[in-house]
């Protein structure tokens, strides 16, 4: 449990945080990845399937969301079970400021309501969500572990209940009926809500959204990486590993924790605003506890604290259920000759099994950071083996076999 910003003396096999030495490889990798990201929607739409384009859009939204939660849970080690509340705040800010809804409650706004441009709403949504993050963080500073988890869960529910009920006395959120006719993203007169024709090429609306979301997701990834490597990021890590020691070396734990909540929340707020614009309709149903848990699953399953891991976890958890949706029925048909188990139930069943299995074989996530992985191994070494069972799958192997496992996954 060393602090990562103390000189690393533990072993030579540790990669330093800065990847300066492997810059060339990093650039190559990123370039290829960027190419894949750029080409992906074209390939998808060439296959004639808009479904997967929509799934890709939503996966990008979830990446932003999961990276936000990763700051709170992965970097600062604060378990947050109500994270979806910030997504909700962002979505409602966008919906209220970019739809005719407010005109009902405040006729002074004119019949058309507010239609502010994206440049204003998106940062505003991020700020308001960040404010909510501080609001949640402030009373919970002293809480630890599971107590923090239940309070954040309560906070998420409180936000949802307010959104479900703030149609009285003034109709602010339209309650369970939700808000409709939310504007799509607009750049001036250019709307992302319709497909655009450039000469002979028609670009569907979903593809426009894809590139917009991809750009913003890249922005958030870069921000996450920069944060992780910054003074703040190291302070978060210090708090995660040992709060008292962190305070002892002069970290203002209160401000740094609040900052984690605020940063994480603001990423969620951005994703929420974009979600509202993509869907055109939002209602409190989208922001339930299960949604919070789902985002947490993405972060933990991928490898919390490790940005590529989180992205992998998100892609898998958005893609896997959809893939099962496509294959659960036909696969049974092919293997058994008839559909034995209701494909929809089977899909959720397999999803649950996948969660359990991944945790069994990769308890630190599918793609944890190498530091975390090593810590885990060291810990397993130091701990006495109090289990005399034989199917123990703690990996006490050396780094090499660990790495080969990583590649296999």
């Amino acid at each position, binding site marked *: 449990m060393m602090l990562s910003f103390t000189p690393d003396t533990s072993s*030579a096999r540790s990669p330093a945080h800065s*990847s300066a030495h492997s810059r060339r490889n990093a650039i190559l990798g990123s370039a290829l990845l960027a190419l894949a990201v750029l080409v992906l929607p074209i390939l998808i739409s060439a296959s004639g*399937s*808009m479904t997967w384009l929509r799934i890709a859009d939503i996966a990008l939204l979830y990446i932003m969301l999961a990276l936000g939660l990763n700051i709170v849970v992965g970097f600062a080690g604060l378990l947050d079970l109500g994270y979806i509340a910030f997504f909700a705040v962002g979505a409602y800010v966008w919906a209220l400021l970019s739809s005719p809804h407010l005109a009902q409650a405040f006729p002074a706004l004119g019949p058309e309501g507010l239609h502010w441009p994206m440049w204003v709403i998106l940062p505003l949504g991020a700020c308001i969500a960040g404010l909510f993050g501080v609001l949640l963080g402030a009373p919970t500073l002293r809480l630890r572990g599971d107590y923090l988890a239940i309070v954040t869960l309560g906070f998420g529910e409180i936000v949802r209940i307010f959104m479900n009920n703030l149609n009285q006395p003034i109709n602010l959120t339209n309650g369970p009926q*939700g808000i409709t006719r939310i504007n799509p993203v607009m750049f001036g007169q250019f709307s992302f809500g319709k497909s655009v024709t450039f000469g002979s090429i028609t670009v569907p609306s979903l593809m426009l959204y894809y590139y917009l979301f991809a750009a913003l997701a890249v922005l958030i990834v870069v921000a996450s990486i920069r944060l992780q490597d910054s003074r703040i990021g190291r302070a978060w890590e210090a708090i995660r590993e040992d709060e008292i020691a962190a305070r002892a070396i002069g970290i203002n734990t209160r401000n740094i924790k609040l900052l984690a909540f605020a940063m994480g929340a603001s990423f969620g707020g951005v994703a929420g605003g974009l979600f509202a614009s993509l869907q055109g309709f939002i209602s409190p149903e989208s922001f339930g506890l299960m949604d919070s848990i789902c985002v947490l699953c993405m972060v933990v399953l991928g490898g919390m604290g490790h940005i590529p891991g989180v992205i992998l976890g998100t892609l898998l958890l958005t893609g896997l259920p959809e893939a099962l949706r496509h294959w659960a029925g036909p696969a049974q048909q092919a293997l058994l000759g008839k559909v034995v188990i209701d494909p929809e139930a089977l899909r959720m069943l397999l999803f649950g099994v996948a969660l359990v299995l991944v945790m069994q074989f990769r308890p630190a996530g599918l793609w944890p950071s190498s530091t975390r992985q090593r810590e885990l191994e060291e810990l397993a070494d130091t701990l006495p083996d109090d289990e005399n069972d034989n199917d123990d799958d703690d990996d006490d192997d050396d780094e090499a076999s660990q790495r080969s496992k990583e590649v296999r996954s």
Partner: protein
Amino acid sequence: MTRAHLASYTPSTKLILATAAMSLLALAGCGKQENSAPAASAPAEPAAPAIATVKIGMASPLTGPQAHIGIDIRNGVQLAVDDINAAGLTIDGKPVKLELVAEDDEANPTKATTVAQKLVDAKVAGVVGHFNSGSSIPASRVYSDAGIPQISPASTNPSYTEQGYKTTFRVVANDSQQGPVVATYAVNTLKAKTIAVIDDSTAYGQGLAGTFEAKAKELGAKIVAHEHTTDKDTDFAAILTSIKGKKPDAVFFGGIDTQSGPMKKQMTTLGMKATLLGGDGMQTPNFIALAGADAEGVMASIPGLPRDKMPGGPDFVKRFKEKFGAEVELFAPMGYDAVHVLVEAMKRANSSDPAKYLPEVGKTQYNGVIGPIAFDAKGDLVNGPVTIYVVKNGAWEAVETVGGSAPAAAK
């Protein structure tokens, strides 16, 4: 040092590439899957290759807490598809076979749009769905962009049809129709002077309770309390006790049977004598099963004529039970009729191409299991009759049919 770093970095780079490659492969696979699906189903019926297949989409929550309602709708749609296929369908002189494409929207608005896109990709001719207004509304944008008619069997949120889409219809009364009828009955016939209202904080329950409350107030009844519960609760003792203290003559509940069943039982335990009233979400056999003997005297409305007065009504309930081994839960009749509405429109337009038969859907005049179906300009049901039922000897019995231009009133 440097070598070590390089070595430790390489696997990650490889992994990035591998992941990218895998995702591309997966996607390519999906594309193939899409194309091969019809091919795979074609050899299954080699006997009649000439029969064209028309796909009918269906979307509702098939997993999760609301699965019982979603599956009910799917079964209703399935029954309609099977019935039509059994009777033999010809469109424009050619034999046509219907095929159901059922999707699970998990009652989740995000999944709903994905599922909608999947149905559009599968080239369905029309969609019956979704259940939740929260799913129907965002999905309606996808269907509208594709020009595919969407008939919701259950979404009552008024904004669903107010978005200006030509493709949105519903075969369920909008909240503003049932509430006032029940209110009029409660105040004028039951002579209720003080009424308590409970809603389940959903779009359906709150809308229904709101229209009931407004009409009841207008007719001079005093609303002594408006309490709220949720669609997941089973303990209503606290709100019922509070209501009991205000001694209302009647209690109106905006919500569905899974709440109102236990609620009625708890009213009995608390010694409340007030009549429990509700809307179509309560008028189900399941309500009687859940409330048991306490169900006696509960009143609920349902849009349409009494089921036994309708052409295929009792028959529908019987055949549904035979086929699926379950009672009709709630919206199965609506799902059943929605398919017929689509097919009738196809017949009239002599085409199953959405672009060609969409205008015909709006002109529907169909006598279905739920009563006469006709749409107004927005796609809402034209005000039909509403029938009020009471539980007598363990069964729903029609007491009065209100409104509607239908000639055959119950009594």
